[in-house]
């Protein structure tokens, strides 16, 4: 850059202009990252003990402990399952809904607003509503004499169609039922943003491509797979990558449905996620363990994102 076009006579001026942002970034972003790495490699590091004057050995003890920890493996499993189900499902649904929205004329603005509403609603609040829909008030496993106040809206619907009510989230519910509720809720919660992005992408696609396809007698399915999806591929890649990153950081949605116990009453912590594990470790003053878990999460997100970027190089048409 020896002959860069713009060269100031006072390079220090630039640093002054940059300083407010730089100071904030250094204090709140750069230092925490460095500190996380430091704590992750100090075996059994704890903030309290450090204040007390204790010193810690350098090593990978935190990582090996975390990876042997059953609770952590469960958290990682939950996170990965939720990610790999919700992201593809919500992306497909969002794609179909946005294509449908784009093809209707009347009510489009109204429906757009309806679909976008969940985005501006607090996810804990939505979670509580969902919990209420799946919740069984009263005893599910009791005798006939015991009172079931309500089996929840979802079970009412299932019963209406002649199915058997399912214990979704209450005492004694199965892991599969719990995960199903989480998946439904997270997909629903993830839709608005994806629809917004994809609809925006669709509306900027030149209508003449569709006219050209029409003149060529292209079937609707082929128009969708050969024209719409490739032309939307940059947006699809974007929502998939951000979806995975968001999915790996899933936490509030579990709290929304199950509360802080992160699981049904008889099995607290069963649905905990990696971020939840990190919070718990911090709360119990295990900063070393939390940092190690955070770095593992970072590594996972990095690998998945790199994989996606590698795939999108071939599949995405900018």
């Amino acid at each position: 850059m020896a002959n860069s076009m713009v060269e100031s006579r006072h390079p220090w001026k630039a640093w002054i202009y940059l300083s407010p942002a730089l100071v904030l970034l250094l204090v709140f972003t750069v230092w925490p990252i460095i500190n996380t790495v430091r704590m992750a490699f100090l075996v059994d590091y704890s903030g309290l003990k450090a204040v007390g004057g204790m010193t810690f050995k350098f090593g990978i003890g935190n990582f090996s402990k975390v990876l042997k920890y059953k609770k952590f493996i469960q958290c990682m499993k939950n996170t990965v399952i939720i990610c790999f189900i919700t992201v593809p499902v919500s992306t497909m649904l969002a794609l179909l809904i946005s294509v449908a929205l784009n093809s209707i004329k009347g009510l489009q603005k109204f429906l757009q607003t309806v679909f976008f509403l969940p985005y501006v609603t607090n996810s804990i609040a939505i979670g509580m509503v969902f919990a209420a829909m799946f919740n069984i008030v009263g005893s599910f496993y009791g005798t006939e004499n015991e009172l079931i106040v309500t089996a929840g809206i979802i079970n009412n619907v299932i019963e209406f169609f002649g199915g058997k009510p399912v214990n979704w989230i209450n005492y004694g519910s199965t892991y599969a039922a719990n995960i199903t509720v989480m998946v439904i809720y997270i997909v629903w919660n993830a839709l608005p943003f994806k629809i917004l992005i994809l609809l925006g992408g669709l509306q900027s696609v030149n209508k003449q491509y569709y006219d050209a396809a029409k003149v060529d007698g292209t079937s609707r399915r082929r128009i969708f797979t050969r024209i719409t999806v490739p032309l939307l591929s940059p947006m699809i890649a974007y929502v998939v990558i951000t979806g995975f990153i968001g999915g790996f950081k899933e936490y509030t949605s579990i709290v929304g449905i199950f509360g802080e116990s992160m699981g049904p009453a008889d099995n607290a912590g069963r649905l905990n996620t990696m971020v939840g594990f990190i919070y718990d470790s911090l709360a119990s003053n295990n900063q070393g363990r939390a940092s190690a878990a955070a770095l593992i999460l970072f590594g996972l997100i990095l690998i998945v994102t790199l994989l996606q970027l590698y795939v999108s190089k071939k599949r995405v048409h900018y």
Partner: protein
Amino acid sequence: MKVELQNLTKVFPSRHVKGEEVVAVNNFTFTIPDGKLVGLLGPSGCGKSTTLYMICGLQKPSGGKIFFGEDDVTLLPPENRGVGLVFQNYALYPHMTVKQNIMFPLQNLKGADKLTKEQMLERAYECAKIVQIDELMDRKPSELSGGQQQRVAIARALVKMPRVLLLDEPLSNLDARLRLQTREEIKRIQKETNITTVFVTHDQEEAMSISDMIVVMKLGIIQQIGKPQDVYNSPANLFVAKFLGTPPINVFSGKIKDGKVIIGEEAVLDVPGVEDQEVHIGIRPEGFILKDDGPFSCKMENVEVMGRDVSVVATNPASQNPIIRAIIDADSPIDQEAETVRFAIKKNKIFLFNKETEERIYTGTEKGAKQKEVK
């Protein structure tokens, strides 16, 4: 395949409840002869693109019928009409290579028409050869120049072997030099394939240079149909006269009195048999002859020498344009310092138009009188 348009009309509803409807195409009746290249010509908003889209089937006519040969295609969707359309901005699928773009229409064929991969490739290469892009088959549209993209678009339209080829402003996205080259190219491709071709343009030079026939339109109504040179030589009304020709025709306010054309105070030409009336007088730039004792005098402004010919810029109080432009032979001696310049007028380059209707008044002696019946 001849294309017959009968009383074709397109009305767009108003945006407002109380607003007026827009009649984009009004009672358009015209038969496009088989294997000809026809240009729809007119200023923007005259309904020429709407007409093209109706022939294509992307827009439904509000009234009238369209025939391809003997088949009534008015209600058929575009894919069943056998048309190829080249869009103004080409609409090439950006994510496909040239080859994939050209093969795309073939892959849509179903049932008995279905082709094997080899047949498709063969057809694609055949079309690519016609438009001379067979070297570029593996490129993406973004890696092509404007002219090459245009050829790909034409190849994509041709590959289905359409009965009618439609081109929407095919040259408007090209630079001047490429435009000249491409219009020859279109003419060549049309001749080679012998497919009935309709193209839309607002550029009269473009239309005149390659069309077998032009249709001049204004506000949805056909003004004149004919061979380019015939329309130029014998415009049916003032609009057509003004629209065709560069530099444009010179228009004067004048009158007919005692069988003479009078501009200002000067009788410039004898037109026996025409009634006395107020008229618009149009004189083509090449209709002036420099003559010291010519009947028509103008104030000399300047002289532009452009190699092949000389154009005299002058003014006259009766002129409706700010200046008069006369193109004369480069060999004519001209005194640039002179105050006034005098012209004689070539009889076949002067047109008279009714003051009110702006319709052409034919002078009887000219063969253009025949044109009136055709219209």
